[in-house]
């Protein structure tokens, strides 16, 4: 018999997310994804000095300030028609790269790994690694003191690594928990790299319209390089290896293909390699229906937003975001979320590392996908490939960053002063790739003030609801068929949702305050 279970809070993501799933025959039959908090970031920018925008939109999300600030800088550059100096372009790429590293490490270890590893197995560690023996003592004491927070309580499941009768053993579990602890230090070093050029993280100050604030010097290049080298080693020897370890666990083999989002992927492209951004390290493109060898182009005009299941009036249906209209209707029958449903060429699109890696298809990814049997029909990319793509991307970007670092030229310009000349009227657009996927910011300037500001963010694509044709969003589709053997412990639902690295604060905000109350606003 079908049964609906409601999961709230969906923890270890950013933000407030609720997932409802209908379970039948031990698997998910239907799914609904909802975002449950909003503030109204963009609306407060109206009438403000355009230079304020970047600082304010960084605060859309404390996990993603770097990418929102970067997208905003590009939108403002565009509005001011600046020529970005090479030093500025490279420093922005380095900072974005450092953020990929910190975000991907944070996601796998601190947000996702506790779904796969049994921390309570650590007291049974029998190895001789001194650091792990200390960790064993520590966890043993926590358990003995009856204070195992924040590792318990959690969903129980027989397939945690280290669980008696489960995969792996206590030694493997302890090794992974040791990496979880190391990862705190590693992601912190990546934040330090950002801080070197951008002043601090989260919420940085190092980009401005027209460039960056801090010139490259031998000292800051060296400080960045030494941390990067350490992180590259750790990514290769720990992060990638842990992904391979988890990918080989027999109990997790269903997660190779379970969690497929429908197979359509979108990337705006990121990391400009020339001033105009014609060449990008992560290319732009689209893929439909898992035909991964057939990468197609991207045309902004093909984005349309549906609101049939969102809290907006029917008038808002079917608009391109640039001309989007939004009137809330909180009483609307069948609506269940504040996210709209963006569709590209009529299709729900997954964005993020998996999309980017399938579009770029680096050798390391193709070889791994082949060895894991992912390319044998039916081609599907589920929970584990999503994690693997993120790790591979982390390595590729880190390796490339050391090349970019060598291209910096101390003493050469970092800023185009045209960034300071605010036009009376202008329009600017910044399309970038954040750790979680394709991100667009748009600004309209009028009377030298911000007239309108919009952002369309990755999680809006991934966590979107059904569209006007009833087609589910990528996360909802990915959940269909995910095994849930025990309805009291729907761990696989959480594993599937978390593999997308959702960020709900980003996905929900409001614009267009026309009245004192909520009269017209737009959730994206």
């Amino acid at each position: 018999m079908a049964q609906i279970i409601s999961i709230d809070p969906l923890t270890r993501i950013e933000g407030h997310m609720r997932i409802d799933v209908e379970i039948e025959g031990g698997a998910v039959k239907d799914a609904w994804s909802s975002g449950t908090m909003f503030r109204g970031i963009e609306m407060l920018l109206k009438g403000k000095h355009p230079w304020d925008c970047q600082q304010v939109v960084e605060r859309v999300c404390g996990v993603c300030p770097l990418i929102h600030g970067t997208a905003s800088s590009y939108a403002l550059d565009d509005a001011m028609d600046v020529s970005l100096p090479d030093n500025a372009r490279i420093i922005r790429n380095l900072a974005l790269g450092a953020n990929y590293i910190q975000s991907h490490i944070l996601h796998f270890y601190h947000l996702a790994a506790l779904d796969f590893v049994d921390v309570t197995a650590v007291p049974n560690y029998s190895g001789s690694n001194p650091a792990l023996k200390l960790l064993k003592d520590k966890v043993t004491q926590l358990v003995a003191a009856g204070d195992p927070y924040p590792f318990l309580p959690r969903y129980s499941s027989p397939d945690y690594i280290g669980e008696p009768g489960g995969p792996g053993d206590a030694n493997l579990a302890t090794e992974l928990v040791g990496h979880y602890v190391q990862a705190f230090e590693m992601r912190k070093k990546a934040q330090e790299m950002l801080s070197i050029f951008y002043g601090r993280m989260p919420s940085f100050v190092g980009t401005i319209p027209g460039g960056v604030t801090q010139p490259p010097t031998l000292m800051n290049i060296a400080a960045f390089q030494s941390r990067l080298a350490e992180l590259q080693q750790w990514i290769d020897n720990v992060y990638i290896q842990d992904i391979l370890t988890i990918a080989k666990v027999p109990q997790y083999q269903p997660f190779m293909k379970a969690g497929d989002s429908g197979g359509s992927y979108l990337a705006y492209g990121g990391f400009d390699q020339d001033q105009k951004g014609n060449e990008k390290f992560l290319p732009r493109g689209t893929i439909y229906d898992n035909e991964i060898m057939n990468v197609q182009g991207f045309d902004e005009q093909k984005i349309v937003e549906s609101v049939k299941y969102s809290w907006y009036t029917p008038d808002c249906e079917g608009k391109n975001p640039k001309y989007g209209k939004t009137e809330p209707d909180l009483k609307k029958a069948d609506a269940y979320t504040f996210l709209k449903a963006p569709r590209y060429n009529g299709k729900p699109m997954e964005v993020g590392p998996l999309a980017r890696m399938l579009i770029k298809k680096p050798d390391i990814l193709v070889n791994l996908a082949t060895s894991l049997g992912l390319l044998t029909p039916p081609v599907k990319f589920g929970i584990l490939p999503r994690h693997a793509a993120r790790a591979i991307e982390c390595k590729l970007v880190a390796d490339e960053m050391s090349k970019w670092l060598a291209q910096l030229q101390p003493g050469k310009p970092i800023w185009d002063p045209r960034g300071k000349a605010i036009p009376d009227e202008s329009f600017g657009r910044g399309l970038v790739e954040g750790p979680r996927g394709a991100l667009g910011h748009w600004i309209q300037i009028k009377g030298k003030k911000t007239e309108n500001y919009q952002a369309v963010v990755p999680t809006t694509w991934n966590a979107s609801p059904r569209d006007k044709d009833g087609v589910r969003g990528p996360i909802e589709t990915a959940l269909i068929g995910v095994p849930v053997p025990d309805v009291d412990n729907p761990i696989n639902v959480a594993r599937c949702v978390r593999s997308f690295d959702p960020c709900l604060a980003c996905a929900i905000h409001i614009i267009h305050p026309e009245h004192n109350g909520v009269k017209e606003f737009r959730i994206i």
Partner: protein
Amino acid sequence: MSGKLVSRRQFLKHAGATAALLGLSEAMIPQLANALQELAAGKPPVIWIQGQNCTGCSVSFLNSNYPGVADLVLNQLSVRYQPNVMAGTGKTAIEAIDETVKSMKGKYVLVVEGPVPTAENGEYCTFGLGTGTKKLMGNTVPNDKTIQEWMNELVPPAAAVIANGSCAAFGGIPAANASVTGTTPISKVVARIDPRKPVINVGGCPSHPDWFVGTVLEALLYLQGKGKLNLNENKMSRTFFGQLIHENCERRASFDSGLFLEDWNQNNPDMKLCMFKMGCKGPVTYADCPVRRWNSKVNWCVGANAPCHGCASPAFYKELSPLYQPLPNVNFDGITPAVDVLGWVAAGATAVGVGAHYLYKQLGEKPREPAEGGEK
């Protein structure tokens, strides 16, 4: 004491390093050790919930250095509920709250990140399931529970409430849109529920991990009756928010010499240029950023050749906009930062200094000597 993780001697040693870095008085260390050791399970329980937040203060907490976050979570604090870190999901996450409220009544610290929206019955922010039902495409499912309802439940049994970050403390960025969502700072929400409950604010957008961790430790001492809270009029610890950024700025000498950055390609080899004319809010912001610095002391905003935006100030963001324009009311007649507009600004020496040197630079004339002590 059973279940103790470190010896008292180890703790004192560690607390010494911690306290030094946090800027706490050495004299407080033995008290700190006692305070932490005497709590029931050895580790003070913390429930950390999120309102209209962006998770920036949680990410900043993860950047904590000496003590690192693994140390804090494993050794020093019992983090019962923290939605970004905890293993539990859905009902297993909520169980952790329920259990703590039951067994740790009057002993846990409630940390709130993000303010509480009060418009529309609080429905702009929910987590967890309510006791009622709602419809979901024809199905009946549990309804949502608002952060306001959570505050009503969690504030009375808490030992103290810490509003972590500028938006929880003062409204911050979401407050600029308060007319829509009814954004309300935590201190006001708590006052409505229990006016006697201690509330401590930690400023910053985000809060510096030392500010947050240090404030938690100071609060624990206070709760043990071992220390006094030295708070300013905004309920912020003077340990961290006691001095103007401008007073301790490493570029103060440039300011005093009238050397201002006006073009980011300018690179004075002898002296880093003052950011005042690019909108620096250091002269009106109380925080110890110049000495504490950020991200393991790697850098800070002015260190990156950028202005301070005043994110630790109760006035952030709305009253400090435009962020990249020089402070208002430091005008050519000299002096007064508009105390009527920026009521929390310290007048006096700093203000005189700003006015005099700015004037000097602008007009190319030597400023009149300010009166001794710089009264206005």
